[in-house]
C-alpha cells in the first residue's frame, strides 16, 4: 500500500536529514575552525585588544567582553548584525570610543583576528 511506503520514505528522509545536520555540525565544531585561529589570538594579544576586551566573559573591561561574539544576535555596542563585515568596520571605523586600527592591521591580519573572534 502506498501509504505504508510513504511512511517508510518519510522516516528514511527524516533520519537522513537529522543525521546529516548532526554530522555537519560536528565537522564544523571539531574539525574545521581551530587551526587558523592561533595567528588571530596572537594578534589580539600583540595589538593590545586585550587591554580593553575580555575574551572569556561578556563583562566590560574598557570595551565589551567579546566571548561568544558571533553567537550573538547583534554586536554589543553598535547593535549591528554580527557579520564579519561589521566587525571589520569596527576595526577600520569604530563605532564610538575604540581606537582606529585601520593602519595598524593589514587586511590579512584583520581577517585573522575576525577568525579568532569567531571561535570565542
Amino acid at each position, binding site marked *: *500500500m502506498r501509504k505504508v511506503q510513504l511512511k517508510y520514505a518519510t522516516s528514511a528522509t527524516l533520519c*537522513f*536529514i537529522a543525521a*546529516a*545536520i548532526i554530522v555537519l555540525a560536528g565537522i564544523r565544531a571539531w574539525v*574545521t575552525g581551530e587551526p587558523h585561529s592561533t595567528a588571530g589570538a596572537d594578534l589580539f594579544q600583540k595589538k593590545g585588544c586585550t587591554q580593553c576586551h575580555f575574551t572569556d566573559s561578556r563583562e566590560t573591561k574598557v570595551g565589551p567582553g567579546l566571548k561568544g561574539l558571533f553567537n*550573538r*544576535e547583534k554586536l554589543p555596542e553598535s*547593535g549591528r548584525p554580527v557579520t564579519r563585515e561589521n566587525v571589520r568596520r569596527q576595526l577600520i571605523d569604530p563605532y564610538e570610543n575604540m581606537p582606529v586600527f585601520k593602519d595598524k592591521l593589514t587586511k590579512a591580519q584583520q581577517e585573522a583576528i575576525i577568525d579568532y573572534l*569567531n571561535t570565542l
Partner: protein
Amino acid sequence: MFSPLSRILLYPLIVILPAVLVTALGATTHGFVSELGRNAALAAVMIILLQGLLAARFKWISHPFGLDILLRFHKYMAMAAAVLLLLHPVLLAAGSGSLDLLLSLDQPWYIWLGKITLLLVLVNVGVSWYQRKLHLKFEKWRFVHDILGPVIIVFAFIHSITVGHDLQHPFIQGLWIVFFVTAVLVFVWHRVIRPRQLQKNLWQVIDVQQETSDVWTVKLKPPQEKKVFEYLPGQFQFITFFRGRNLPVEEHHWTISSSPAEKNFVTSTIKALGDFTATIKETRPGDTAAVHAPFGRFTSTLHPEEKDLVFLAGGIGITPLMSMLRHMRDVQADHSVVLLYGNPDTDQAVFHQEIKEIEAGGHPDLKVVDVLSDPNENWDGESGYIDREKIIRHCGEDLSGKTFYVCGPPPLIAAVMSALDELAVSHRQIRVEIFSFLD
C-alpha cells in the same frame, strides 16, 4: 531523466545542501550545539522553500508517486520543518550560554522577524494538521494557507539573509537567492499563471444527471472540439466551475467516473457532502469549467499483470472503481472482479443499475455483492458492513494472488483495513484511495 528512486533521494540531498556548503565554504565555527542550531534552520528553510514544488502539481515530480501521496509528504515535511525551526533558537541560546535570545525583548528587528516567522509556521502547520478538528472549511483553510505560505517564505528568507553570517559566502548567498526566487516563482505559477491559462481553455457542462437523492453526475466536454486528455481509470481531476448565478467559484478535486475509452467527455460523480458540493445540483448544461487533470495513481491499469481483483467500496467511494469497471467493459478486459459495495440501501447505491449490467455483460468477470446497512424487510442479501466474514464468504479463504482496491469514507477504510490485516493480506496487495488531501 532520473528514476523515481533517485527523485526521492534528490529531495534530502537538496535539503542538506546549504548545511554542506556552509561546512565546506563558510568560515564561522562555534560550539557543536550552536552549529546544530544553525543547521536545523538551514535544513528547515530548505524544506520550506521546496514545499511549493511538492504541492504545485508538476507532473515530473508527482507522477511516480501520485499527487495525493506527494501532498501527504508535503504535510509531513511541514511538521518536520516546524520541529527544526523550534529547535533553532533553543539550540542557539543553549550554545551561547545565555537565554537572552529566547527571553530578552531587546532584540533587533531581524530577530523579531525570525520569531514571527516561526509563529506563522506553527500556525500554518497547526491549522493544516487539525483542519478537521478546528472545523475549518476547506476553502477557508486554503485561503489561509495561500497567504501564510508565501509570507513565511519571504520572512524566512529576509531573516536568514540578514542574520546568517554563514550565508555570506558569495556562492552560498547566490544559491540561497536562487532557491528563494524559485520558490516564489513556483507559487506564482501555481496560484496565478496556470489558473489563468486553464481559464483560457474552458470546458463546457453538457449534462447534469441525478444519480441518487444527493449524488449528481456532471458531464464535461473539452474546449473547441478537442478530445479528452489521456487518463487512467481511477484518476482524479481538479475542476473550477464558472456558473454565474452567485454560485461559488472554487477549485475542488473529484474522481473521474467516466471510462477513458470515451474520448468526447469526462464525468465526475459528486455527492453533496459540504457547502460547495451542496450547490452541485445547481450546475446546468452550458456552464463552463476550468479542468486540471489527470492526477493520482489509484488504478488497476498500472498493474496489468494483476487480473484477480477485489473492489471494496463504500457509498460515493465507488467512483474510481466505476471508472475502472466501465473501462474494463469498454475494452472487454478479462479480469475477474468481486465488488463488495456498502450502502444504506439499494436506492442510495450510486450506479446500481449500470453495475448490474456490467455484471451481466461478462467483461470483466464481475460478481457484485451489495452490503446494506439499512435494508428494507425483503432484502435477502448481505446486511451490515463490509467485514472479515463477508470478505471470506465472497472471495474465498485463499486471498493470496488477489489485489484489493479500497475506497470509501474513513470509517469504512479503517474497518476494511483492519479486516484485511486480520486476514493476513499483505499491504502490497492493498491499494487505498484517500479522498481528502488533508487526512
